[in-house]
């Protein structure tokens, strides 16, 4: 039996180095993971709170909402309502993992296994992250964003910038291209492109907005509308993109700010799409590594018990009628599914052979999982790999709340008839294009008062939360500079509700114009 990596809870930088080397050995040699270079940073609890408030990033621009989150977390933390996360990891290259100074040596081992190898492998290999985010450039881009915004604050005033950022943040959930882009975002080029774009805009004259009479008034309206839709790339679901490109009354710096918010929304979008997979992967990897460390005698039984305590806390899933239940725990679901896939690869039952003929008994679970980690997101992962066994173990059931019915209806349970239906229903809950209301810009009224027309495709009667929708619409109208109409339309094209908002400030955001 080899010597232990550490004794007791204390650690030093040599201990971390030793732990890292051993964990790396297992991760790369046994599990054959493929990771970005690692950078591990030791921070204090205060700094962890700071990092929380800035979406986990080491640099971020200033805005009051981050202060709000800080105050929120700080309050909860000081009251003892919530613990801080043990770790925080950034999708960048090198991959930065924060570890807290207060953690025990065992916790640091766990964090390194979980973040520096689990998350890191996922970031580097998952298709969404690979195509959608530029890990190498993000920190430089954030640096650029911060100094650009600070500069705007100095030039145009903090209030002006704040108003614009408020509006942009409100639209952040509708500021992403949902379908994969052809071209990867290259954050390095963004800074030069920002300058080029400004120079180009100054040269350009946008005929679309000219107010002089002329043209051919008798041209058939439909074709004019079509031409317009084509020019404006309508319908457009990325509201921030649309405003950045076409809002008539924005100053160049305001467009640039919208772009910054939009690119960051796009950067964070894969994280929203892969909560279950990302956490599942990291949990699965740390479980493998910790078990191996215990087997090889690198950590003792006591430390392993400490690990199991944290591990079960993290993967705890209370039942729906438990007071602690809030939603399905992504750590728990991801880990359960991946463990079950491993079982299916090694020791399949007849049921598994029927459901997963390509995986059952393939005997190389790591290869199979790595392939899944690389190519799936939550939605597709669940729709393909939620096994009947997991549904049974979790005793899942599908509940429908239809307002026209006086009762809630149990649609399906964990039985032969229910497996596929539950899987389908759960899949939809992870489909962001289904969860997020589908809102598109469909037209601009150029004949009249230039109002912008948006449409919400209502599914199953789920209208927008009305008060907040009006608030967001008000901010949108401010950006657009003219009235904005949002129509909520059901599957058959019947209008259900309409919100109209005038820009609240007579000049919209024009005060920034030269």
């Amino acid at each position, binding site marked *: 039996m080899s010597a232990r990596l550490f004794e007791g809870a204390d650690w030093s*930088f040599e201990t*971390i*180095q030793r732990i890292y080397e051993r964990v790396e050995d297992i991760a790369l040699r046994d599990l054959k993971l493929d990771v970005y270079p690692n*950078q*591990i*940073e*030791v921070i204090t609890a*205060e*700094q962890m709170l700071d990092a929380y408030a*800035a979406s986990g990033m080491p640099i971020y621009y*200033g805005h*009051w*909402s*981050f*202060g*709000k989150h*800080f*105050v929120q977390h700080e*309050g909860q933390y000081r009251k003892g309502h919530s613990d801080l996360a043990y770790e925080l990891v950034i999708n960048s290259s090198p991959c930065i993992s*924060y570890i807290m100074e207060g953690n025990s040596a065992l916790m640091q081992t766990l964090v390194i296994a979980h973040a520096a190898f689990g998350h890191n492998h996922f970031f580097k290999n998952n298709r969404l992250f690979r195509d959608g985010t530029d890990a190498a450039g993000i920190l430089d881009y954030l640096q650029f964003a911060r100094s650009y915004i600070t500069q705007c604050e100095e030039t145009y005033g903090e209030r002006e910038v*704040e108003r614009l950022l*408020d509006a942009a943040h*409100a639209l*952040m*959930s*509708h500021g992403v291209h949902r379908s994969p882009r052809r071209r990867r975002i290259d954050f390095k080029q963004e800074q030069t492109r920002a300058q080029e774009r400004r120079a180009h805009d100054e040269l350009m004259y946008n005929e679309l907005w000219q107010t002089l009479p002329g043209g051919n008034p008798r041209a058939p309206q439909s074709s004019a509308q079509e031409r317009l839709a084509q020019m404006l790339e309508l319908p457009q679901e990325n509201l921030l993109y649309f405003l950045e490109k076409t809002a008539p009354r924005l100053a160049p710096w305001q467009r640039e700010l919208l772009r910054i918010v939009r690119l960051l929304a796009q950067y964070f979008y894969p994280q929203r799409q892969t909560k279950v997979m990302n956490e599942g992967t990291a949990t699965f990897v740390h479980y493998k590594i910790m078990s191996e460390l215990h087997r090889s005698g690198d950590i003792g039984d006591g430390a392993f018990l400490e690990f199991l305590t944290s591990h079960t806390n993290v993967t705890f899933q*209370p039942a*729906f*009628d*438990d*007071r602690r*239940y*809030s939603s*399905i725990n992504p750590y728990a679901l991801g880990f359960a599914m991946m463990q079950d896939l491993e079982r299916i690869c090694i020791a399949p039952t007849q049921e598994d052979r029927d459901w997963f003929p390509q995986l059952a008994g393939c005997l190389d679970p790591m290869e199979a999982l790595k392939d899944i980690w690389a190519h799936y997101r939550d939605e597709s992962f669940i729709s393909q790999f939620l096994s009947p066994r997991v549904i049974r173990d979790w*005793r*899942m*059931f*599908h*509940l429908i*709340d239809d*307002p026209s019915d006086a009762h*809630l*209806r*149990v*649609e399906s*349970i964990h039985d032969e008839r229910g497996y596929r239906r*539950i899987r389908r*229903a759960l899949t939809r*809950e992870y489909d962001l294009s289904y969860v997020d209301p589908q*809102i598109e810009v469909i037209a601009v009224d150029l004949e009249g008062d230039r109002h912008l027309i948006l449409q919400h495709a209502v*599914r199953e*009667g*789920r*209208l*927008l*939360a*009305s008060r*907040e929708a009006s*608030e*967001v619409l008000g901010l949108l109208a401010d950006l657009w500079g003219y009235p904005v109409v949002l129509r909520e339309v059901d599957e058959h094209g019947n209008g259900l509700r309409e919100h109209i908002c005038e820009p609240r400030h007579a000049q919209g955001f024009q005060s920034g114009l030269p």
Partner: protein
Amino acid sequence: MYVIDRRLNPSGKSLPNRQRFLRRAGHVLREAVRNVSVERPIRDVNEGGVVIIPAHGIGEPSFHVGQDGTHSRVLPGNQEFLEGDRLARPPMGGGRGRGAGKGSYKGGGEDEFRVALSAEEFLTLFLEDLELPDLERRKLSQTEAVGLRRAGFQKTGSPANLAISRTMRNALSRRMALHRPRPDDLERLIEALAEAEREGKYKDIRLLRGLIATHSARTRAIPYIDPIDIRYRRYEPTPRPIAQAVMFCIMDVSGSMTEHMKDMAKRFFMLLYVFLQKRYKQVEVVFIRHTDHAKEVDEDNFFQSRETGGTRVSSALEEALRIIGERYPVSEWNIYIAQASDGDNETGDHERAMKLMRDGLMPISQYVAYLEVDEPHSDMPLSSLWKTYQNLDPAPSMRRVTMRQEIYPVFRDLFRRRDGLNVE
């Protein structure tokens, strides 16, 4: 792999954003701070603390679906349900079904949150829009006690005030000016003389004896310290502001005072307390409640208990005078009197109340404020007590309020008025 120790990096990166947030949430916070402060004992009003603010006041809105329409959830932990079961809908916000569904859309638990404020932030928010700095610039008249202040030196005085270093300095310069021989010069001459005597240099002996005689004579004639050198520390009597104040909170607690009225009175007393605290080192508060008889009580009883009986304002004024006489000598304390009442008073008592005010309290107090509280939207005519006080010359600062929000402007107003009327 690198391990980087970031612990020494400056923390507090979020502080600028926190400040932005406090500024942004100003109006909500101010409201919360004022609500919290009403629940506190008056003396604790300007300590920091945690306030809870509703999140929607400073929300970050986004497009998301609301409660309309069909929602479906997959939930774990089924025990007894079978396909097709129909369940009673739990009350809104329940832990299952719709409640749970909503939770995950919005992250849940966002209804309110706590902000920990430092004492300074708390007070700033509390006083914001009160223009207190303005008030501070206005000089309230204040009683002054006579104190002594050092003011140079003088030639006469008591030995206790002898200024030794100044005296010695004078002596030294006089001795130097008059060429008083230094003691070691004389010693050297005496030594030289002794040597000359041993060696029998008679000429030198005579010379030296002569020199010694003149030196000794000079030393005797010029004293080491002369009465003209002596200086005493001089003190000058100066008026000095009294650094302590006592604030009398007088309130009618008869049945006609509602909780609403008491709440307004409390806010007013609180403001006065904060204001006094900014000016004086020590502020004491005396609570006197009265019906037809008055009693000094502690703060809890003051605001909480209610008594029945008639209303005789004079009883409270008498009690205040008695307490001042016993415990707060006018020469040592600044006296502030704040009275809150709904204006009821027994008809026969007006004369007496007026006399006590005019001859007793007004002359010895820094400031007398009378706050008449009433229910909102009441159109009662001004009360008899109001009319009584109005006839006083000078009249106390008087205001009538019916709504909470009016307290702050009234407070500011009262001080302004006082300033205008009493140019002393």
